[in-house]
Each structure stands twice: as C-alpha cells, then as structure tokens.
C-alpha cells in the first residue's frame, strides 16, 4: 500500500488522532501558561525567587520525557493524567523564563509613573506590567507549543491520546506493510499541526499586542 492509499484509507482515524493531539497540546498550553505566568508574577520581584523558578523549570526539562512518564504512571495511572501533567511541566520553562524577563524588563520609570498616579499593585500589574511583558510571554508560549508538539507524541507510551500512537504502533510493527506509513503519517501530522499553531500565534500576536508597542 502506498503512503497516499494509506492516508485515503485511514483518514478518519488520522483526523481523530490529529485532533486529539492538538487538543491535548492546546489544553496543556493553557494550563502551562496560567501556571507559568502566575509563577513569574509571584517571583519576578525577587532576584533569588525568580532564579529559583527558572532553574527549577529548566531542571524539569532535562528529565527525559520517557522517564518522566515512567515515573508518573505508578503514581497517577495510565491515560490522560500522566500526559497532561508531563506536558504541562515541560511547557513551563519557556513561559516562566520569558515572563520573568518581560516583567523585569518593564521600564522602571513606567512602574514609578504607575505608582505615582495612584495605581494599586494589582492594577499596575494588570494594566501596565503584564501588557508590556505580553510580547515576550507570547514568544515563550510559541516556543513551548513547538516543544510540546513533539513531546506529546511520547505520551502514547502512557496510553495517552494523539498522533504518538501511530508512531509507536509503526515502530512496534517494523517490517510489516504499514509500519513506515504509520510513522510517516504521525510525524508529518505533528509537523503540520505545529505549523498551524504557529500561524495561529502570529494572528493572536497581531490581535493582542497593542499598536503602540508592536515592533
């Protein structure tokens, strides 16, 4: 069976896997963004706390994904739970680091001005600091998403959803008729999804970064 025939026969299954893959990455990104920005907001003002947050998330990233899943499965079981936890943890570093850099990079005279005209700390954060730090945060989210696209494929090891299942099935049955097709379809699907997500982020940037600070 040629690759194209394979695609024609299995497109239903492929679309489902692709959708689940995208959905898993998207949801984990939302989680990672929320947690990452919160972490950054909580730590950026202090030198050591900020560095601790960056170093911790960087350390998580150095744990091999297979190993992390292997460690999580005995604790939370198979399926969605280990996938979500692993992906969210991996997604944190770029977001935390960029958010801290972005928040620390806000011009001190603007912070002074915000305080001086009577903004409370929360107002200052929401109206001034986060909007100004938003472009680097968005870049962090983009980088994170690219990374998670690949890592999510490993989630199939923990019986998670997504295109990784195709790849694993293909590898497991190497030599059989459809093995190569499966691996190829899974990989290409991931690449296409990554490109689509990237395009979406460019659009989000256009819509959410105010004209006054757009590069």
């Amino acid at each position, binding site marked *: 069976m040629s690759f194209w025939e394979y695609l024609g026969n299995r497109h239903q299954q492929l679309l489902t896997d692709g959708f689940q893959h995208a959905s898993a990455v998207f949801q984990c990104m939302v989680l990672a963004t929320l947690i990452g920005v919160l972490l950054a907001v909580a730590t950026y003002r202090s030198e050591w706390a900020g560095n601790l947050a960056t170093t911790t998330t960087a350390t998580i990233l150095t744990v091999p994904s297979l190993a992390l899943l292997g460690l999580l499965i005995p604790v939370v079981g198979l399926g969605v739970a280990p996938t979500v936890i692993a992906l969210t943890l991996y997604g944190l570093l770029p977001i935390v680091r960029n958010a801290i850099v972005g928040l620390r990079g806000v011009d001190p*005279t603007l912070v002074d001005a*915000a305080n*001086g*005209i*009577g903004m409370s700390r929360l107002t200052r954060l929401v109206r001034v600091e986060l*909007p100004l730090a938003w472009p680097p945060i968005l870049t962090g989210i983009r980088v994170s998403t690219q990374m998670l696209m690949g890592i999510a494929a490993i989630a199939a090891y923990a019986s998670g959803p997504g295109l990784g299942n195709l790849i694993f099935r293909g590898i497991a049955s190497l030599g059989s008729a459809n093995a190569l097709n499966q691996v190829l379809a899974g990989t290409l699907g991931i690449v296409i999804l990554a490109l689509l997500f990237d395009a979406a982020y460019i659009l989000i940037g256009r819509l959410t970064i105010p004209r006054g600070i757009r590069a």
Partner: protein
Amino acid sequence: MPEATGEPSETSGATIRLEGLTKRYPGTPTPAVENVSMEIRAGETVIFVGPSGCGKSTTLKMINRLIEPTSGRIRINGEDVTDIDPVRLRRQVGYAIQSSGLFPHMTVAQNIALVPKMVGWSKAQVASRVEEMLDLVGLEAREFAGRYPRQLSGGQQQRVGVARALAADPPVLLMDEPFGAVDPITRDHLQDELIRLQHELRKTIVFVTHDFDEAIKLGDRIAVLRERSHIAQFDSPEAILTNPADEFVSGFVGAGAALKRLNLTRVRDVGVVDFPTASVEEPLQRIFDLLGPNGTNELLLLDRHRRPYKWLRRGDLSRARESLARAGSPVTHHVSRDATLRDALEAVLTDSGGRVAVTGRRGEYTGVVDMKTLMNSVHELLEEDRMEAVEHQHDLAEERERQAQAAQEGLS
C-alpha cells in the same frame, strides 16, 4: 478625594507642610534626606533646586510617599497623610516625571483617562475631560487622542504627561525634572506653557530641577537644597538672586545674577519712552518737516496698522530720492510688552541704533526701549531687591529672637 465632577474646581491648590522629614536607607551611615521642614502655600509654585544627589528628588517623592519617610510628617491641607493608604494619597496628588512616563501600550486618550477612571468618573465625564485636558495643554484632541506615545515628539509627550497628571483635577502637582529630557527650545516652550497653565489653574506645584535658570523662571519661591536636602535658602527668586544666604547659594546661583534678574521683569513693568513717529499714510511733506532742522534727527515710520516699519534718519529721504519704499532701514527687531528685560537687552544690543521698538498685542507700536532706560530700570530693580532683602532679613532675625525668647521663658 478630588470631587468627581467634570468641572475643574474653583479652589486653588492645597497647602503642603513637611515636618522633620527624614529618609534613612538601611546600611548607609548618613540619611539621604535629613529633617526637612517647610511650608508650601496653597496655589504657589515651589522649586526644589540643588546639585545632583542632594536628595531633592527623594524629598519630592516623599510627598506622595513613593518613598516612605523614615520619620517626620506630611500634611496636605492640614490633613496628616503620613499614614493613610498611599494609593488614596496619590490619587489626589498629580505626578509628572522626566521623559513623560506615558504608557506606550495605551493611546494618548487612554493615558489621560487613567486617573479619572480609577477614581470612578462616568464614561461621559472621562471622555469630555480627556478632550478638555488635551485642549488645556495645547494639543488638538481630534488629532492626538488616538495616537500612541511613540508617535509623538518629546515635547508633545511631556504635554500629555502633564495632562495626565492633572486629569483628575488634583490640588497638588508634583513634577520631577519634567523638562529634563527635551531639547532647549522645546523646554523653553514647555516652561512658558506651564506658566500659562498655572496662571489659569493655581495648583500647588512642587517642581524639582537642577537648572537654576528654570527655577528662576518658574518659581514663586525657590528652595535651594544642599546635601541631605538641607534647605540652604527658601525664598523668592528675586531675594535669592540679590541676596544669596551663603556661599553655597551664591555658588549655585552662579555668575551673572544681575543678568538673570532681567529674566524676572517684563518690558511692561519698566517705562518705555516715546519716540517721534509718523505713519506711511501721512503726506511726504509732513515727514520731511518732522525730520527738518527744527524737528528730530530720527523717527519711526509705522505702517498702515501702526506697526513699526522703518527707522528713518534725517537725510535718508533725500538720498532715496524721496521714495519711502527705499528710504531708511527696516525694523528688524521688536519686542512685545510681555518680553523679559533680557530679551529686550538682547534686541537693544543687536540693533545698530541701540534701541528697540516695543509692540502691543496686535503688533502695534507702543513705545521704544533703549540702553539708557534699561540701565536705569535695572539699577532701580536691584536697589529695590536689596532693600527688600535687608528688610526680610531683619524680619527673620526678629522672628528668631522672639522664638529664642519664648523658648527661654518656657524653660525658666
């Protein structure tokens, strides 16, 4: 809280009273600001001036508690604000800083609307206020409201910064070297603008600068500060110029105090002298007669709208074969009645005849200033200042004596 009406309040500013204000940073042997006490009257412009690092900015920032004082009290309109919620305090104190401090991700209108929105004005009130404020600082609302700060020039940004600081109509305005980052010409314009604004609004303004000329130009009173914000002298610009309290102040005033004094007086405050004039519409014969042997040596020819047109000397006319268009030398310099004596002196020095025409609001001739009038008025001014300063010192000495006596009586 400033009243939440769209109308600017009729009241002038509020009094500010600093009592023994001290700021000590942990780990430093000497305080950054030590025991500053002063009283700033409602509606006056007070300038803090001093060398860099003297703590003038720190003192200013303690007034709205951007820097919390280590000890001492701050009273605004009698109310002790040292321990109230700083956010509440800052909303009744306008704050403008160097390089404007505008938020780059917000439009001009959004920047100005910030404080009124925070204190709870309605949408309609905020919108009309934004327009009013832009108008007040001389920017066309339709053109500028939707722009982002980076689309403005430095001077325009600074104007918007002032508009934002004044938007919620605070009785007090703090300005921290607001014009420090703009070019000299723009700075001059902004200073003039501030003088005009203050004339209309009568806020209490505390203004920090290291530029003594700026201090003289803007201040009702000037506090010359030395290290740790010690007040070396706190007095009117005239008094500081003519009678500096000590060597530090005179060093800071710098050379040319008499020249600087010229900046404080306007042409309309000194006598302008009359000069023989004639109008271009008058018959040539009359002009001849005026310049004749029994008349004057020189006259000022005015155009149809009575604006200075030409200096005409005896003989000019005959040399130019009786054509008014060719005779005489055109008036190149003239000063308005609102010009400073310094501008007038500049014009007199540049003019070949050593005199300059003074014009009224529509450019019409009102008189002439020459070297002699200038010299006389400057001498008179300096003499007056000196007398006043001596009197003032006398009063101060008496006051001190009275206090000393009272203290002694209290002890015994």
